[in-house]
């Protein structure tokens, strides 16, 4: 893997500002609810994918059970609102409760699941997911197979989407910011070290379980909150929508498509995949589920097998390659010329037992 060329900071900040401006202006420009609906869902999933990536992208432990948090947040919101008879906008005060629910689930979940090796971890997340789906179907307080519905908010129907859009935007922006901050922090460094070589990181003093669990709980809490928002947006939750087997694979696809482990990757992935998924669901031949499954599976295979590092990183590399037509001299990160006192780059003469990069 080559080090990547760094764009000047001013360009990146400028691009970010434009993006934010566009995001804020979006529902003002496109007032058609059908369009803003795409916006809301896209932003919800930007949040979900970024939250997922905060844990899975950094630690390398791929979770296929985040639907547990999403659905739990949705159900928690529904149950609390119904039991405590909360209507109107005060319902949003319940969001911290949903985050707490997500965190409370994540702790025992993580303590069990994070002790095992990576592939077993994935299996456990799948198992826990099915447990929760089963519980949602069978407990009476979750409404059984008909699920729960939310009281309607008394907003005018023409502007219904807009507040949700901005709420989702707030969450998306917040989550991405948290992800960015983590990446630059010591905590993030520990997470990434765990991903590369957990044993060695432990040997150097990194408290692996504590670090992993913290990221897991954070990721779960955020996902639960946005699940609650989602519930209120579509006004209902059922076991198969709150705990949807396709949910996690879709999120994984988003992260991989955009660039697994990067901050911008899940954002890009969600912005591409979610509107596409939504659109497919409106096309009548795709509803009834099975074609979207096949498509999801197929696209996933294509991405994982051919673009495993994600579109952003791979695209970036292609662009760089195109610019330089494969000549390494232009890349600042290429093997530097050996200085007289630094025998650090005699790669050609190394009688290396193992090769430098690939394994």
């Amino acid at each position: 893997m080559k080090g990547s060329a760094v764009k000047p900071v001013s360009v990146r900040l400028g691009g970010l500002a434009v993006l934010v401006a566009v995001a804020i202006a979006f529902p003002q420009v496109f007032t058609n609810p059908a369009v803003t609906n795409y916006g809301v869902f896209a932003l919800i999933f930007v949040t979900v994918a970024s939250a997922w990536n905060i844990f899975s992208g950094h630690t390398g432990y791929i979770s296929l059970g985040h639907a547990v948090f999403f659905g739990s947040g949705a159900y928690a919101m529904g149950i609390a609102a119904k039991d405590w008879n909360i209507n109107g906008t005060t319902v949003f005060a319940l969001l911290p409760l949903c985050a707490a629910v997500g965190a409370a689930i994540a702790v025992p979940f993580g303590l069990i699941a994070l002790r095992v090796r990576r592939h077993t971890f994935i299996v456990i997340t799948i198992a826990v997911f099915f447990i929760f789906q089963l519980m949602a179907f069978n407990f009476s307080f979750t409404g059984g197979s008909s699920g729960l519905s939310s009281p309607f908010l008394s907003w005018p129907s023409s502007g219904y989407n807009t507040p949700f859009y901005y709420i989702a935007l707030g969450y998306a922006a917040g989550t991405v910011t948290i992800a960015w901050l983590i990446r630059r922090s010591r905590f993030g460094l520990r997470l990434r070290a765990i991903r590369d070589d957990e044993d060695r990181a432990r040997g150097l003093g990194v408290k692996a379980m504590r670090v992993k669990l913290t990221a897991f709980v954070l990721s779960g809490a955020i996902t639960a909150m946005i699940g609650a928002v989602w519930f209120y947006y579509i006004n209902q939750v059922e076991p198969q929508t709150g705990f949807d087997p396709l949910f996690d694979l879709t999120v994984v696809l988003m992260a991989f498509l955009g660039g697994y482990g990067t901050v911008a990757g899940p954002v890009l992935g969600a912005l591409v995949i979610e509107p596409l998924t939504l659109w497919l669901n409106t096309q009548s031949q795709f509803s009834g589920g099975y074609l979207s499954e096949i498509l999801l599976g197929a696209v996933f295979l294509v991405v994982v097998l051919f673009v495993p590092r994600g579109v952003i990183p791979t695209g970036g590399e292609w662009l760089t390659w195109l610019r330089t037509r494969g000549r390494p001299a232009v890349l600042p990160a290429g093997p530097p010329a050996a200085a007289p006192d630094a025998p650090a780059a005699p790669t050609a003469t190394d009688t290396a037992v193992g090769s430098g990069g690939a394994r």
Partner: protein
Amino acid sequence: MARQIYEAVVDGILVGGVYALMAVGLTLIFGVLDIINIAQGVLVILGAYLSYSLSTRAHIDLFVGLLITIPAMFAIGVVIHWAFIRRLRGTERTSMTLLVTYAVALIVEGILYKLYGANNVQLSASYTTGSLHLPGFYLPYIYLYGFLLAIVLVVAIYLLLYRSRFGRSVRATMQDETAARLIGIDVNRVAALTFGIGVAVTAVGGMVYGATNAFNANSGYDLISRLLAIVILGGLGSIGGALAASVFMITLESVVTIWYPTWAIVVFYAALVLVLLIRPNGFFGRKAVRAQ
């Protein structure tokens, strides 16, 4: 009550034997290729549907139909390996292949859904409804036949692994892929064939499952949940472990179903969690293969 438990235990052992066959396929795939094949569940359903089509369209007997479905599933397994799994390399291979097989499972499920619709079906033949009348309870013939067939195949796999040249290559690859390559074993071929075998057993599992349960394209999830729990409990890569865990867990579920039919499947998850808390490598782990 005692009669119910007795019946549940016997049923559990018999059905457990069939699950053992499917679990052995799954654990073999992990042992040789380091892959957790999430698609195993839905492939069982595919096998069931194949038997269904052969039975309803071509009027071929369920057991006779296996002569077609077993090679067919074997071929499908080899194709899946060749198309999707072969190209994955690197340190996170197991996690990646898990995602890939998950995606394959979704695709197969979608295709089955499209071809067969959402309605539940069940395989039937003259013997699927009949039971053997034993003192105290009835033993469905299909359970018995399925169990016997499963035992035969498990023994066949065992013989293949321990008495044939191919089997030696497989075991060598399981223990040390690099060393196997060094002594001239075509590891890719071994991998492809092993994957094929691992999937081929789902033909039998599918037929028996389909004859004893109503199923549709969605039924794969329950199956893979059980199979994953079984192979992890028995230790990924351990054949003997898969066998023991299958019989034990299915019997346990069978007994629990008497009192809690909807929640019985939770025993799998509970057992999984418990075992992983105590022994993260399952009970047998991969060492068992070396010892055999």
